[in-house]
């Protein structure tokens, strides 16, 4: 009996032991969990306490600084310390700015294309219809360069341009414009370097670029006011003068706008040609000035002069190739007036411009020695009457040139005409970067007049370019 009891007790002990052996680890684990949670909470608490007290300290500091600033506003010492990473620094009042705390750090990574130049592309497409064959169309009395002739009939891709531009270093910028004409040939339209850090308002430019003479000359085709250039530009400058050379400009430190400049060029482009000498074949000089009449209207005036030499310059005329050797001098007076209500051109604006050309060509036309004067002018106005829509009108004329009898029947024969043309324009812009235009020209420059209807789209994409005046 005793044995049974002791056995039972042993069993009970064993059981209870086993039981307690079971129970004890569970309790221990719970306690450990609790401790861990407590520790975490404590850790969190102390962390937040730390954070809160830090924030309190910062707030206090900010308040103190604000109070100090307030207390001794005129004193220098109370002014906030100078620093450029300003926004996070507790400026007086900064505490209010909940929404404009600090800008998040920007991820700045370096990649091989980080220094790529800005690439912008211009696409142009035309549809042209003429009442007479444009290939035979001439401006009576003038030998035209290929660029000075009128556009081809039918659908055509007009000049498409790719421009790569960037700063070279802190002292230079560079610009390369490749254009693809309707003949599928790429050409370097502009390729120049320009100074950016010369003192005294000086700017130097070298390479190939459009001359700053006149008002329209320096503009690329996609920035012309009309689809084509006015008669005097086509007849006297081969549409626009651009060549290889150097340019200096000086902006006077006057209270009004006054810019003086001069250029020297190789002289290989129309109206020059065939220059292969040490000295520059073409020289130009120009003065630009302008200002505001009031907040709604402003003006620009320019006087320009270009002298160029031609040596056996050959142009394709309607009656065979023509040559010219000699000097060509041309003076241009330009006036531009712009109106925009309150100086806000978005909704409505008017641009009026006019230029007068006076030129003299001397020496040998084909084989005939001669000297002749040529005068021309144009006026044009474009009125943007509502956002995206504008309309324009242009009248251009050239005086009849007098030539010796020996030149009768050649391209230089004025045919008794004073060439003139009148053009109307309607333009719709989808945005600053997309444009559709229609232009109708009644051209009275040849024996019989030509009516020309042109449609054009122009788009510009790539970096946002700034617009010149």
């Amino acid at each position, binding site marked *: 009996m005793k044995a049974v009891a002791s056995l039972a007790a042993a069993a009970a002990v064993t059981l209870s032991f086993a039981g307690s052996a079971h129970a004890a680890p569970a309790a221990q684990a719970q306690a450990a969990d609790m401790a861990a949670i407590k520790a975490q909470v404590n850790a969190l608490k102390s962390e937040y306490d730390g954070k809160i007290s830090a924030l309190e300290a910062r707030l206090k500091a900010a308040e103190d600084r*604000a109070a100090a600033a*307030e207390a001794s*506003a005129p*004193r*220098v010492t*109370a*002014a*906030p310390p*100078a620093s450029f990473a*300003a*926004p996070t620094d507790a*400026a*007086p*009042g*900064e505490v*209010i*700015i909940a*929404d*404009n*705390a*600090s800008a*998040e750090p920007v991820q700045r990574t370096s990649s091989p294309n980080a220094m790529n130049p800005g690439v912008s592309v211009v696409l142009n497409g035309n549809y042209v219809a003429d009442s007479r064959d444009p290939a035979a169309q001439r401006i009576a009395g003038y030998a035209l360069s290929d660029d000075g002739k009128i556009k081809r009939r039918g659908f055509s891709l007009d000049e498409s341009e790719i421009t790569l531009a960037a700063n070279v270093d*802190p002292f230079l910028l560079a610009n390369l414009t490749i254009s693809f004409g309707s003949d599928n040939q790429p050409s370097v339209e502009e390729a120049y370097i320009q100074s*950016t*850090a010369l*003192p005294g*308002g000086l*700017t130097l430019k070298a390479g190939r670029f459009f001359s700053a003479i006149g008002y329209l000359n320096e503009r690329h085709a996609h920035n012309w006011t009309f689809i084509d250039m006015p008669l005097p530009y086509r007849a006297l400058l081969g549409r626009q003068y651009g060549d290889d050379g150097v340019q200096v*400009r*000086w*902006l*006077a*430190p*006057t*209270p*009004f*706008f*006054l810019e003086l400049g001069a250029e020297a060029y190789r002289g290989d482009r129309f109206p020059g040609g065939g220059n292969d000498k040490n000295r520059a074949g073409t020289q130009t000089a120009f003065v*630009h000035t*302008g*200002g*505001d009449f009031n907040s709604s209207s*402003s*003006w620009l005036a320019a006087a320009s002069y270009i002298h160029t030499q031609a040596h056996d310059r050959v142009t394709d005329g309607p009656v065979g190739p023509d040559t010219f050797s000699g000097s060509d001098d041309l003076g241009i007076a330009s006036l531009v007036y712009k109106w*925009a209500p*309150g*100086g*806000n*051109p*978005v909704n409505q604006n008017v641009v009026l411009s006019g230029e007068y050309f006076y030129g003299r060509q001397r020496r040998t036309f084909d084989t005939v020695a001669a000297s002749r004067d040529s005068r021309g002018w144009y006026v044009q106005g474009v009125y943007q009457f509502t*956002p*995206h829509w504008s309309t324009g009108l242009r009248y251009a004329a050239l005086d009849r040139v007098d030539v010796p009898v020996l030149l009768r029947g050649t391209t230089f024969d004025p045919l008794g005409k004073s060439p003139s043309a009148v053009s109307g324009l309607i333009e719709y812009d989808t*945005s*600053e*970067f997309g444009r559709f235009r229609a232009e109708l020209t009644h051209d009275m420059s040849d024996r019989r007049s030509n009516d020309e209807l042109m449609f054009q789209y122009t788009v510009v*994409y790539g970096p946002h370019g*700034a*617009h*010149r*005046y």
Partner: protein
Amino acid sequence: MRRAILAAAAALLALGVSTPAAAALQVFACEPEWAALSTEIGGDKVSVYAATTGVQDPHQIQARPSLISKARTADLTVCTGAELEIGWLPMIVQQSANKKIAAGGRGVFQPTDYVKLAETPASLDRSQGDIHAGGNPHIQSDPRNMLPVGKALADRFAELDPANAATYHARYAAFATKWNAALAKWQAEAAPLRGQQIAVQHRSWVYLENWLGLHRVIALEPKPGVPPSSGYLAQVLEVLKKQPVKMIIRAAYEDGRPSEFVGQRAGVPAVMLPYTIGGSDQAKDLYSLYDDTLNRMLKALK
């Protein structure tokens, strides 16, 4: 004759060159609000030229000759930045041949560099309209932004003109005190506007919305800088039927027709806000700019 012309030209130039530059710093401010802030901080130590007025759209300004001649003599440009002036300022800076204000120099101060910009686009594509890579540049619609910008401007003035550094910092401190008082006043006045639903014409008010706790339901422009068609405005009217707004706000320089059109049909006041100094007759300086802004909005709420 030639000698006379040359003498006249020389005299003219001398006149221009010797124009008295009594102030130490010549500041070219692109917008009236920054011109006013520059004057607050610089006082008579700076000579400030405001390139635009309150009724001009700062996105689209003609690079006029007068602006080029002013930029020629500037020591510092104070222009919003974040591409707001990208369509005209680079041309003026380039033609001004003034290396002090060329990009990257210390003569370029852009207020948007000193506040956190909202609405930074995730991707850049012109199909999105006239978006700004850096974010929404219209930071002046929240007057709180004048403090960090003003502080940084004082620092910049001091850096460019160390002789007057003390003045700039002191003037900033005085401005901050006055400005904080004005902010407190405005925030109290604007209490009824908190939580109100509004529509905007162009998205140029995000900072104002943040400041006053306004809730923008819709913009009348389908995409930034793209004027709405009448078809799009009809859709806007549908939205406004379901989510009524208290007012439609636009800047003084914007064409009022879209907001008037929608306002009339939805029975909601179309409110022209000065946007900047000079935008309304009442907005004569920095303080009255926000006074007038709040007045106009509170009046519309009644």
